[in-house]
């Protein structure tokens, strides 16, 4: 009969106390697992080192808000950029790719963010070396839409299904225009999975999405530092066309550029294989120029997220790790108290074993094995409970925060939990073990 099986007999003998003790360890461990996994999820989600674009251009304001809005689709748009500005950016000689993004609305079912963009969005890498894959077709017609894998799963949508969208911030304002799903993106592990992509032309064509002419002129004038007259002059041809269509048909068939706006622009600088750092320098230069300029800003999305992680999330993470460490320590003390208290009742049992020939180290080891067994059982149960907690809480967190939770996510730091538990158990089992070691056999045999 091994020391472990003897230790297990003893644990079984005190089933209630042992179960409660192991459960307290399990609770502490599950909390630690939850914190570790939450940390991994947040770190992965907000790590934009691999992001497929060099810059996000948007109206001036909070850099963080711009990134949260454009990349994570978590925050409402700050303001919009005139389409004319997008054309300027696209024409910049240092820019290889400029993708317009229009945000603000959400799907009527599920409340997923709607992102109006051009088909090129899907042909660019969403992360370094990673391209979108689709089941179905890429959007080519005005009312075509592509949905992320999470949207498809949650809403039960399939290719061919129609849907409506809700106007930004107005749950009761459902746009009458109907989009049709032509493709479902394969999972990317990014916010794209929970986004509904619609053709930008369709997005612009939705009633109420066009900026009124006078308002658009005022906005452009302010944006470019021009007079309203200069703006009118710039758009003279298309305004004349617009006027003609309104007079002839009562409404315009084509939306003038003046009335189009985008929330932000995703930009990739030109890359020179002979000088790989040149694109970074170009991005920095472009960003610096905008800082001195008018109403737009170009943000390297890595930086605001890094600041957020370092200053806020990182500190919260450290605090949580300390707290869960303390919880496990308290559980360890619980094991110590449980075993130590039982020692008074077990002196006779130890004396019997000694009389049967067990030496002091053997009885010491039995107590230590008991402590280790309780810690390991509690630790393993805690790992299962922690992952279970993440599985249960995942959909709720996704719904509330937009962060995608992989229920089977594993943090390599989990690997140290069991060895750490064994070390902790050795510490807490040492004093009770010593009590067993010092038990007076003759005295306790006759007690």
């Amino acid at each position: 009969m091994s020391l472990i099986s003897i230790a297990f007999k003893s644990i079984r003998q005190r089933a209630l106390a042992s179960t409660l003790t192991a459960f307290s360890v399990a609770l502490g461990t599950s909390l630690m697992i939850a914190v570790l996994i939450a940390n991994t999820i947040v770190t992965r989600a907000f790590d934009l080192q691999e992001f497929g674009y060099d810059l996000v251009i948007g109206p001036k304001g909070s850099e963080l808000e711009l990134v949260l809005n454009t990349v994570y689709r978590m925050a409402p748009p700050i303001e919009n950029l005139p389409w004319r500005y997008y054309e300027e950016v696209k024409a910049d000689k240092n820019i290889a790719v400029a993708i317009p993004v229009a945000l603000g609305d959400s799907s009527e079912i599920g409340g997923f963010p709607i992102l109006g963009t051009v088909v090129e969005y899907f042909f660019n890498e969403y992360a370094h070396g990673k391209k979108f894959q689709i089941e179905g077709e890429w959007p080519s017609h005005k009312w075509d839409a592509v949905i992320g894998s999470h949207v498809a799963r949650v809403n039960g949508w399939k290719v061919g299904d129609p849907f409506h969208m809700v106007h930004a911030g107005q749950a009761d304002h459902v746009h009458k225009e109907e989009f049709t799903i032509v493709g479902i993106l394969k999972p990317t592990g990014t916010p794209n999975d929970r986004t509904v992509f619609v053709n930008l032309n369709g997005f612009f064509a939705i009633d109420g999405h066009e900026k009124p002419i006078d308002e658009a002129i005022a906005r452009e004038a302010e944006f470019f530092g021009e007079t309203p007259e200069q703006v009118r002059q710039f758009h003279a041809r298309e305004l004349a066309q617009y006027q003609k269509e309104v007079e002839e048909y009562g409404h315009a068939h084509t939306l003038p550029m003046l009335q189009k706006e985008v929330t932000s622009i995703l930009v990739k600088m030109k890359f020179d294989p002979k000088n790989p750092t040149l694109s970074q320098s170009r991005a920095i230069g472009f960003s610096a120029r905008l800082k001195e300029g008018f109403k737009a800003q170009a943000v390297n999305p890595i930086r605001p997220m890094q600041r957020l992680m370092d200053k806020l999330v990182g500190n919260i993470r450290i605090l949580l790790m300390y707290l869960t460490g303390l919880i496990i320590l308290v559980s360890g003390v619980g094991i110590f108290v449980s075993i130590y208290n039982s020692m008074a009742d077990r002196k006779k049992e130890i004396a019997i074993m000694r009389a049967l020939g067990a030496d002091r180290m053997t009885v010491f080891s039995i107590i230590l094995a008991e402590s280790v067994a309780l810690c390991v059982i509690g630790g393993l149960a805690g790992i299962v409970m922690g992952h279970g907690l993440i599985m249960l809480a995942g959909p709720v967190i996704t719904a509330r925060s937009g962060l995608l939770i992989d229920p089977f996510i594993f943090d390599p730091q989990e690997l140290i939990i069991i060895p750490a538990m064994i070390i902790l158990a050795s510490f807490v089992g040492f004093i009770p073990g010593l009590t067993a070691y010092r038990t007076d056999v003759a005295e306790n045999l006759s007690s």
Partner: protein
Amino acid sequence: MSLELKNIKKSYREPDGNVLPILDIEHFQVGQAEQIALVGSSGGGKTTLLNVISGITTPDSGQVFIDGVEITRLPEAGRDRFRAERIGFVFQTFNLLAAFTALENVLLGMSFSRGKADKQLAKDLLEKMGLGKRLSHRPSQLSVGEQQRVAIARSLANRPSLLLADEPTASVDPANQDTILKLIRDMCREFGVSLLLVTHAMEIAEQFDRVACLKDFNAVLQTTS
């Protein structure tokens, strides 16, 4: 010679500082497969003598030889090992472990010796004790007589050369006393084990050919007629 004691002295210091002599044995021996009853007054040092013989307690002076090995010269771990391999113990209160079944209690006794616990041997022993159908019962599910029979099986599991029985029938009901005593003696004979049985009951001691009386701290052998 299975057991030999030479000039064993053992005393305890009382709380008031006085030294209380417990044992003062000039010479005492038990032959191979011999069965001796040890009698003496209550508090007379009988249990202390068993503890000294088994190496649980060290004497103040003197030598204890078992199978020619002077166990008083062995370090504590060596005495523990020796006890596990060569000495069987039967206690008045059985001292079975409550968390273990009858079979496990016997296996536990085997676990502390050098050899591995032999499950079949343990089962055979329990069957010999008439407990073949009670292997998986815990002590609380066994009668007093059955518990003592498990304890006897445990004490013989390692094939010891010496069995120390400390009033093994004192906690057993009168109807079972003779059965238990007979079982111990028969098993010792069968396995060739020397037996030193402590009792305060003269009717039990009288059944032995030789009786040692612990009087004035000294074990003196008498031969009953």
